[in-house]
Structures are given as structure tokens and as C-alpha cells.
């Protein structure tokens, strides 16, 4: 998960990931959308690939990239665990409050 977080910590990489979320694009095409150089974009693609966030496919001399949504599953589960904890605490508190009121009424 560390590689995923590190890959996502850079805004160009987040933009690249978004670009290839619902379409497969050649590296050159991806680079044409950015103000940074082609080699810099290639470097970003390499980091994303190593983090398992994009897949690379060769077609002749071209390399095509597409987002790999499974790559985000572990991070997603991690983030969601916080919400689950929060919701469990909230539920407990609500139930405690409910019991208190029931006693006060009874």
C-alpha cells in the first residue's frame, strides 16, 4: 500500500490516472496533455505501473496504458475501516442514549 500512497502523492500522477481511468491511451498521447516533458510523463507512468495502478500493453513500438482499479482496493479498504469504526462508535452512543431515555421515561 505504501507504493500506492506514494504514487498518488504527486498531482501529475493523479491526473494521469484519471486520464486512463476509462480509456487505454498510448504514452505519447498521455504526454500531449501535460506541460511536463515526455520523459517526465514516462517516469510517472513507471511509478504508477510499479504501484499496480496502471497496466501496460505493448502494441508494436507503442506502449498503451490503462488504469487498474483493483490497484486501489487495499487503500480503499484501509480508508473505509476508519468510517466503519466511526459508524460503530456512533451506533453505540446512539444506543446508550436510547437506553438512558427509555429508563428516564420508565
Amino acid at each position, binding site marked *: 500500500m505504501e507504493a500506492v500512497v506514494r504514487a498518488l502523492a504527486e*498531482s501529475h500522477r493523479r491526473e494521469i490516472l484519471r486520464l486512463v481511468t476509462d480509456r487505454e491511451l498510448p504514452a505519447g498521447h498521455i504526454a500531449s*496533455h501535460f*506541460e511536463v516533458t515526455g520523459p517526465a510523463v514516462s517516469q510517472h507512468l513507471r511509478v504508477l505501473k510499479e504501484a499496480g495502478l496502471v497496466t501496460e500493453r505493448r502494441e508494436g513500438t507503442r506502449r498503451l496504458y490503462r488504469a487498474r482499479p483493483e490497484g486501489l482496493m487495499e487503500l480503499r479498504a484501509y480508508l473505509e475501516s476508519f468510517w466503519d469504526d466511526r459508524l460503530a462508535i456512533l451506533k453505540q452512543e446512539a444506543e446508550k442514549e436510547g437506553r438512558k431515555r427509555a429508563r428516564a421515561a420508565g
Partner: protein
Amino acid sequence: MPEPQADPQSDVIERKVRIEAPPETVFQFFVDPKLYVRWKGRMAWLDPRPGGEYRVAINDKAVAKGEFVEVDPPHRVVFTWGWEGLEATPPGSSTVEVTLTPDGDATILHLVHRGLPVEAVGEHSHGWDHFLGRLVVAGSGGDPGPDPMAGA
């Protein structure tokens, strides 16, 4: 396109600049992502046809988003404007009209931004001055350098 309704809560930004290049060249800076990012944005995704969406990341936090309304090369391009995640000025909440008129070998670019809430006019005026200044340089074949607004 229907005329935007007069709204006392909104104002108009109007700018005119001269660019040392023909309209055919200047127009490309609004529809070709590679040229677009030379004057505005770290990343540009453009679908330059009526109804086509665009998304331009100015920096890490500011992402401009909207739709092309009119694409008439090399004379006129109209697009809606707004910012991802900003409630006061959401994507599509205002409209930018760009008209290009030949002036000898150069182009007069006329920009009109309508429909912004009054409190957003100052910041956007500053923004257009900044970016049109860069377009004047990039459009004529120069290098405006890295954009200080793009951040690290």
C-alpha cells in the same frame, strides 16, 4: 446560443489583447492540449466540439471544468467555465467567449467572461490578465516559461 440573462449579482470581464500570429495559429491554443498547457494549466483534457467537455488542472488544487459551446475555427470559441469542488463558481456556471479577428499578420483576441458572481470577478480578472499575458507570448511562438500559478 441564448443570451445570458441579466443578473444583478453577476458581472462581466472583458479583455482585448494583440497576438503576433494569425487567428489560425491562436485558435489552436484553445483546442490542442499540447498548445493549451503552454499558456494555461499543468494538464488539459479537451473535447473541442459543441457539448464536448474540457478539464484543465491549473495546479494541484484548482481544476477548471466546463463544456465547449461553440467551436468555429479560426474565428470564435465559446465555453462554459467553473471550478471543480467550488460551490460559488461550479463547472458550467459562467461562460467565456473568445473572438479572434485578423489585424495584419497578427490577431486581436477579444475575451468576454459572463455570469460570474460579483465576488469572483476580481480573482478571475487577475487570472485572465495572467494567462492572456502568457498566451500573447506563447501564441507568437515565444516561451512564457513555467507558470508561477502552477505551483511546485
